[in-house]
Every structure is written in C-alpha cells, then in structure tokens.
C-alpha cells in the first residue's frame, strides 16, 4: 500500500509543475505589459495621471527590479521557488500580499465545497439507493427525473431561484452574505444539487449492476434480510464508481465556487479570481487558479488512494 501511495504521489508532481507552467505562460504571454499595468494601477490609486509620468528608463528600471527582464525559465523557476516558500507575490490592486488574500478567503471556499460535497453525497446516495431498490416504480421514475433535471440546471439559476424562494419570499434564510451556518445553507445546496444528481444516477446504475451478481443471489438464498443484502453486500462494491464521481465532483465544487460565490455575494477564492480577472490583477489570478487546480489534483490523488483501500486488486496493477 505504501508503495502504491508513493507511486501516485510521484506521478502527481509533473502534473502540478505542468499546471503551474501553463498558468505562468498564459499570463506571461498576455497582450499587456505587467510593468506598465502596474504603474497605471498605482497611479490611478492616488491621482489620475497620464501613463507617461514615468520615463521609459524608469519603467525599465522597475522591470529590472521586479526581475521581469530575466529569461523566462529563470522567472518561472523563481515563481515556483517563491511559491514553495509561501511567497505568492503582491496584488496590483490591493497592494496586499496574495498570501493574505488567499488566507482570508480560502476558508469560505473550503467550507462551501465541503458542505456542497456532503450534500451531493448524502442526497445522491439516498436518492440512488431508493431508486435502485424500487426499480421500475413511480418512485424510481421521479427520482431519476429529478436527477436528470439536476444535472441540467445551471447553478447560477438554481442559486437565484433558491435565494428568491427561501431567502426573499419565505425569509427563512439570509439571501446573501456569509458568516453563520444559515448563510451556508443555500449556497451549499446550490453547489451540491448538480453533484447529487450525478451521484444518484451513478449509484442507481451501479447498485443495479451489482445486485445481479451471483454473490448477491447467494446472500439472498442464505435467507439474509434484503436490507442487509443491499447495505452490507452490494453497497461496498457499488460504491467504487461512485467514489470516482465524488472525487470529480470536488473539482466541480471548486470550479462551481466561482459561480456560487458570485450569486450569493460570498467571499472566497472563486470570487477573488473573477474580480481579479475583471480588474486585470494578474498575480492574484495566477495564484487563485493555481490553488484550485492544485487542490483538484490532490483530491484526485486522494480518490486514487481510496480506490486502493477499497479494492486491493487496484494496488497491484
């Protein structure tokens, strides 16, 4: 098992480096000059002056000071080196270090993603099991119609509708903002419903497939209660494909946080990423995007490790 984990960890390293390089290159080859942009943003912060206030020589000096005149590979190396030491640069807008911004916003996104994931797993598995056990009944049909609808509903719309109904019309929950658990309910459901729909469909089909296997027939013919057959014998095997989707759904959560945080006016990584894109605050874009991609890779790594734990055959492939 340890060898398996080490192997998976080593395989993740080139992907992580590649992700950093891709984000670095995208921003490096943008059709804007970061130094001039920096100067402009700095000036508009105090008084509206024309860009030519700094001479070209001064701009070049600044470029040298920031290390932006070095060869590309050195810049990238420095970026990675600094990042590994917790230094992610400074925001052009707020003048604060990106690290402070991340530290302040990440907890909101983590909280939201975990809550969303919990909802999608619980809701999805329950719905899927009910549908499978009641195969071909109206309960099955309705569960699956809900699941198909849930996959297709755009999250920004779903969020607005939940906000309208529970936040504005019924007044049960705060429509926007963050802070208490009450603020978390609507965004978490918005985030979780899409995943729940996927999990439900997969749980159903996977459970139905497992239920046709011979060892289930054996368990039944031993006279075991149907409840035990389903939960003790069938579920364990049926959950393997479901775990894959859950792992993937964490990615959806992180990507989805961009939308959900926007809809509910919550702070968070997705929010600062979009704001930074609109404000051309590239150091912040770089780090937030990178953070999300890295957590996705790590989540997938975790899923792989869970596979190995659940199914010993996979470890030795």
């Amino acid at each position: 098992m340890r060898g398996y984990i080490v192997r998976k960890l080593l395989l993740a390293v080139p992907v992580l480096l590649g992700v950093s390089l891709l984000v670095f290159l995208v921003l490096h080859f943008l059709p804007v000059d970061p130094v001039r942009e920096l100067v402009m943003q700095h000036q508009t912060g105090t008084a509206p002056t024309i860009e030519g206030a700094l001479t070209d020589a001064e701009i070049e000096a600044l470029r040298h000071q920031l290390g932006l005149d070095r060869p590309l590979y050195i810049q990238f190396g420095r970026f990675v080196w600094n990042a590994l030491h917790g230094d992610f640069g400074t925001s052009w807008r707020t003048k604060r270090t990106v690290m402070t911004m991340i530290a302040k916003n990440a907890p909101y996104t983590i909280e939201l993603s975990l809550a969303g994931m919990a909802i999608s797993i619980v809701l999805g598995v329950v719905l899927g099991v009910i549908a499978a056990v009641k195969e071909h009944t109206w309960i099955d049909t309705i569960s699956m119609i809900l699941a198909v609808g849930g996959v297709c509903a755009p999250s920004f719309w779903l969020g607005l509708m939940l906000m309208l109904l529970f936040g504005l019309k019924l007044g049960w929950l705060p429509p926007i903002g963050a802070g208490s658990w009450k603020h978390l309910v609507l965004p978490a459901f918005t985030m979780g419903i899409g995943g729940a729909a996927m999990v439900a469909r997969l749980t159903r089909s996977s459970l139905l497939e497992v239920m046709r296997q011979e060892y289930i027939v054996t368990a039944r013919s031993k006279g075991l209660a149907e409840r035990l057959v389903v939960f003790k014998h069938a579920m364990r095997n049926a959950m393997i494909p479901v775990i894959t989707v859950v792992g993937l759904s964490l990615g959806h959560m992180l990507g989805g946080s961009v939308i959900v945080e926007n809809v509910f006016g919550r702070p968070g990584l997705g929010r600062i990423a979009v704001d930074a894109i609109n404000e051309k605050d590239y150091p912040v874009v770089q780090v937030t995007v990178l953070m999300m991609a890295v957590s996705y890779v790590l989540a997938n790594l975790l899923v792989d490790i869970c596979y190995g734990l659940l199914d010993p055959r996979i470890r030795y492939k």
Partner: protein
Amino acid sequence: MAVMEAPVEAAEGEQSGAQSTLKRLFKIKGVVIGTVIVAFLAAGAIFAPWIAPYDPIAISRNEQLVPPSAKHILGTDQLGRDVLSRLLFGSRLSLIVGFVSVAIGGGAGVVLGLISGFAGGWVDAVISGLVDIMLAFPGLLLALVIIIWLGPGLMNVMVAVGIGNTPRWARLVRSTVLSIKETDFVTAAKAAGATDARIMFRHILGNVLAPIIVFTTLGVGGSILSAASLGYLGLGAQPPTPEWGLMLSESRAFIRVCWWAATFPGLAIMASVLSVNLIGDGLRDTLDPRLRGKLS
C-alpha cells in the same frame, strides 16, 4: 434510465443498420421528448425575426419590469425589453455556441486522441501529459484561463469552451483507439500494406464513431451550460446581446421585484441542456451500452 430501455428487436428483416438503430432510438421516451424540445428550440431560433413580438434590444422606458401579461407574455426586464423576444433571439446564440464549441473541442480532441493512441511512444507521452495538465483545471476554470487570454466576448467563449472540452475528447478517443488497435482487422489492414494515415482515419476512426457521436451530443449540453455560465460572469457576450446567461445576470439585481426576467432564461437554458442530454443518453444506450459508466 431503465424505464426507457428499448427491447432489442430480434428480427431486423431487410432494414438497414441505420434504420433499425433509428427505430430503436425513437422507442426511448427520453429521446422523443428531447427531440421535440430541440425541434421547438430550433424553430424558435430560426424563425425568431418573424415570430418574436418585439425587438429584442429595444428599450422601452414606460414599460419597465412589467409582469407577464397578454401584451408581454413573459413580461419585460429592467429596461423594458420584452423577455420572450430576447429568449427567442437568445436561442440562436445558445445553439450556435453549443455546436461551434463542440466542433472546436471535438475536432481538436479527436485528432489528438487518434494520434496519441495510434502513435504511442513519446508522442503519446507528450499528448497525454498535456491532456493530464489540462484536466487538472476543474470545471469552468480552464475556460476561464483561456478567456483571460482571449478577452471577453461570445466568439472567444466558443473557443474557450471548445478548448476546455478538448482534453476529455482526447482521452476518450485515445482509450478507444488503444483497445481497437490490437484487433485483428487492424493487423490485417497493416499486413495488406495500408498506410498509417489510412488505418487511422479509415479503419480506426470508423470504429470509434459510436462514442464520438454520443459524446458530441452530450457535449453540446455541457457547452451551452459553460457558455451561459461565462455569460453570467460577464466574461461572455456583452450587453445588450440577448444571451441567456447574460440576461440572468443583468436581472439578478431586480429579482425581488421581477422574478420573471431571471426565471425564464434559466428555464430556457435548462430545457436546451436537458433536451440534448436526453438524446445523448438515448444514443449512448442504443449505439454503445458499454459506455454507460464512462460517459455520464
């Protein structure tokens, strides 16, 4: 969905393969429902200039936030624009975006997947590595990164969503190619002296068509959704374009007094995604049931 499974007909008689597939396909309820919705949307898109009651971008100062009524069936938005007319014109954009981004993503992905699966060796290592890196960007993020580069706009959204879809296509086609490459008919073609390009595009591509067709259909829905999300974030179509995602975000601030302007565009997005997904699910079950777990 089990309720929608079609029985495989034992006697196919003189029917051609395609005919019998179509026949089986339309026995699935979901496919019929999906086709009806798509036909409806397509008709709306094509005939929008003739059937839309108002100009989709005409601002009317004394008719702001009018609730649904006989005059404005779906009401008006905060600028007094008719929601139904905007939806009809918006369906053009959504359908185009859906198909163009799938064409871009699918085209690039199929070629990359074919080459990677067929060539093997370092070519495969490079392409697969790139695909792995691109797949590390969850959900919308890859499209977002590309939008930063291209700048906002509807055209750029299509490219961004297309490129964002490419790695999943490449991976799907590669894995299918790998399993087909080892079959006897490929060996036979090779023995007969067929060139690599001929084997790749004629023999192998022909046999990966089923998953490609299914993935195309399912991809259209996903692309419509992604494009609408980017529109919602303000990174896609720009005002006053009647794009569904943008319509929703523009009316967000007025949702308390004007539920209709935000509700109907969302329903339209959902209906279009749902319809193509229903057709896609049906195609998957008919053409290649083995794909069930893989493409959902």
